[in-house]
């Protein structure tokens, strides 16, 4: 299981009990709200304005979001935002895993790119090496940004544009930080693509999102039990993402499933699923122990397309679980008894991975408890 000994009070030591982890997951909503309060209350208004000017005035040709594991996964949100924007923007956007960036993408000279590093601790070896290299190649300091929980990182003298994650502590690495990172990536990407990161409409929609998350938290047991029952004694699990943003939740969900339950799980994009994993459902040995969860985070998806794809999967497996943020899709899928549907409401579609992950993490925790992998 992911252990994060440096960031929570010294009185807490691994392993933790089910209740401790569950309560920590419950805290995620307050932690996200607190982070949003900081960003919405005007504290960051001038900073966002300054950053917008940087993007406009420096003729940026590329934007890199660079991070490890959950930070990298969270950056998938920006990829979808870049794809979807109808604005004419003069740059391309890349989400790159930190060591891949270090090994292959470090520029040999200043190239007019904007580098946004994401690191909760703000002190990884690769991060420091990357920033040092960028400074050596005389990259404009204004074009190196950092999303971190550690405002006082030793890199802060060299990186002026820091976005804080506002996470007090977390037991499971990548739980609160994944959620808050998605939110901060969402706002920074809005700045970059020329959309206002703060508005009363956005705040109102965000408040409703928090309200829906809170409502789910109050009723988490029944849905979690339903999903756990569906998964039962699975050997392998596929978490399939329909939209690029949901890949964030699929990838981290798979990682948590492996960490919590020690069962082999893969997060995969829907098109890739139909070229490989799909065929594995035909194998003779224990096909019934393969489970599939489909994440639909967007409202764009055409209902008939999804219905066709889900039916293709159902031809080879007993049941499928769908987490849906798409009312049209939900309405159609609900009619099929072999589809276990959990619908949720994320009005800001790019934040749907937060909701998807929020649902999934309780499931894996519950399975870990059932398998007696947690401290009693």
């Amino acid at each position, binding site marked *: 299981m992911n252990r994060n000994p440096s960031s929570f009070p010294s009185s807490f030591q691994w392993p933790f009990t089910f209740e401790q982890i569950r309560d920590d997951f419950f805290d995620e909503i307050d932690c996200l709200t607190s982070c949003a309060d900081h960003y919405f209350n005007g504290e960051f208004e001038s900073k966002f304005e300054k950053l917008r000017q940087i993007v406009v005035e420096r003729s940026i040709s590329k934007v890199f979001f660079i991070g490890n594991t959950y930070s990298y996964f969270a950056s998938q949100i920006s990829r979808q935002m870049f794809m979807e924007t109808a604005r004419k923007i003069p740059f391309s956007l890349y989400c790159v895993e930190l060591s891949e960036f270090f090994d292959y993408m470090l520029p040999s000279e200043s190239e007019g790119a904007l580098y946004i590093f994401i690191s909760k601790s703000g002190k990884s070896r690769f991060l420091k090496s990357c920033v040092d290299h960028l400074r050596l190649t005389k990259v404009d300091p204004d074009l190196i940004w950092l999303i971190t929980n550690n405002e006082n990182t030793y890199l802060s003298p060299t990186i002026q544009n820091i976005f804080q994650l506002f996470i007090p502590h977390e037991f499971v690495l990548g739980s609160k930080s994944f959620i808050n990172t998605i939110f901060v990536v969402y706002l920074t990407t809005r700045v970059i693509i020329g959309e206002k990161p703060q508005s009363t409409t956005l705040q109102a929609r965000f408040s409703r999102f928090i309200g829906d998350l809170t409502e789910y938290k109050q009723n988490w047991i029944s849905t979690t039990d339903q999903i756990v029952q569906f998964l039962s004694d699975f050997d392998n699990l596929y978490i399939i993402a329909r939209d690029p943003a949901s890949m964030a939740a699929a990838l981290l969900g798979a990682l948590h499933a*492996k960490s919590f339950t020690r069962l082999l799980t893969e997060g995969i994009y829907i098109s890739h699923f139909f070229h490989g994993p799909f065929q594995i459902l035909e194998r003779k040995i224990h096909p019934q122990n393969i489970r599939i969860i489909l994440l639909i985070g967007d409202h764009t998806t055409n209902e008939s397309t999804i219905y066709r794809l889900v039916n293709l999967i159902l031809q080879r497996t007993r049941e499928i679980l769908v987490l849906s943020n798409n009312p049209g899709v939900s309405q159609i899928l609900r009619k099929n008894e072999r589809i276990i549907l959990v619908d949720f409401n994320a009005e800001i579609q790019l934040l749907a991975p937060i909701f998807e992950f929020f649902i999934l993490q309780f499931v894996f925790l519950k399975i870990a408890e059932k398998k007696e992998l947690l401290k009693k």
Partner: protein
Amino acid sequence: MLQRFRNYCESVNISRLILIGHSYNYFASLIPYYYINSSIDASVLQVKQVKPRECLIFEPDEFITYCHPYKFDENSLFIFVTRTGSIQINKGIEKLRKYDVDIRKIALVSNNDNLKPLAHFFFPIFCGDEIVIGSNSFPADILVLYFITRAFMNQEIISKTIEDEIRQMIFEIKFYQQDWEFHVSSLNDFLGVDYDFLYFISKGTSLSTAYQGALNCKAYLRLFGEGISFGLFLHGPFQIIDNSFRCILLVSDETSIEDTVNLINLASKKLGSGRIILINNNRSLSSLGRANKNVWVFEHTTQNPFLAPIFEMVVLNYLFLDQALRRGVIQ
């Protein structure tokens, strides 16, 4: 055609390639992605970037459903990679035409000549028929995309060195194929069949092999497999390492060798006595691997990291074939 493509890119100042392809076509597109976007390998290979160029890759479904083409300026050129063609590829091209993208900025890499009218530039891959999807077309895609990329970078497309390199690689592959049963038998004796999951861990251009290998592993061998980068593996699923852990490490360049060695030690000594097959083209890394009894080293001779995945995939395909026989998936 390649020359014409190069001249066109130069004349209208094309600075961004956007590649769109399914599964193995998508994975093969990682070759141009790294060739164009990566700086370190570019300097090693003495690629001279006279002006900034870049490469984006999309999966057709995400391109059709989510990508708004308006954002791409007149300096972008779209390349669809598809063996036979598909509804989604057609939709992707239709989408571009709907947004008035100049047909001269649409190219196709395909084995299907009937698709020619859809694009201004048509690059055949000459891969013939294949029983296992991607077996012939994945290497053919890589080769053709490599040439296209060199043309886009305004380099000599097939220099004498490149031609010699490719001919040598083909010779080595044929040599390997003559004795494949012997090679693979030893590999699979080492790997065994007593495992349920195979990791394909890699970085850089070899990630294309890792992803394609994982896909073939599932589609053809009916065994669970996952392609993953070094960085993600080392910060994530290493918790599942135990004595039954099996993985294929694919390395085709000299970046961060220490991290490769660390990963090998982690999987084969520290967290369990897992078994690793290391497919690489680096003598010193091979020596380090051979010193570990839980590592089986296969060293090939293709030094060019943009072509190495072709050799890597040949080795994997034969490995899968023998595994499929041992597991009774095929007869």
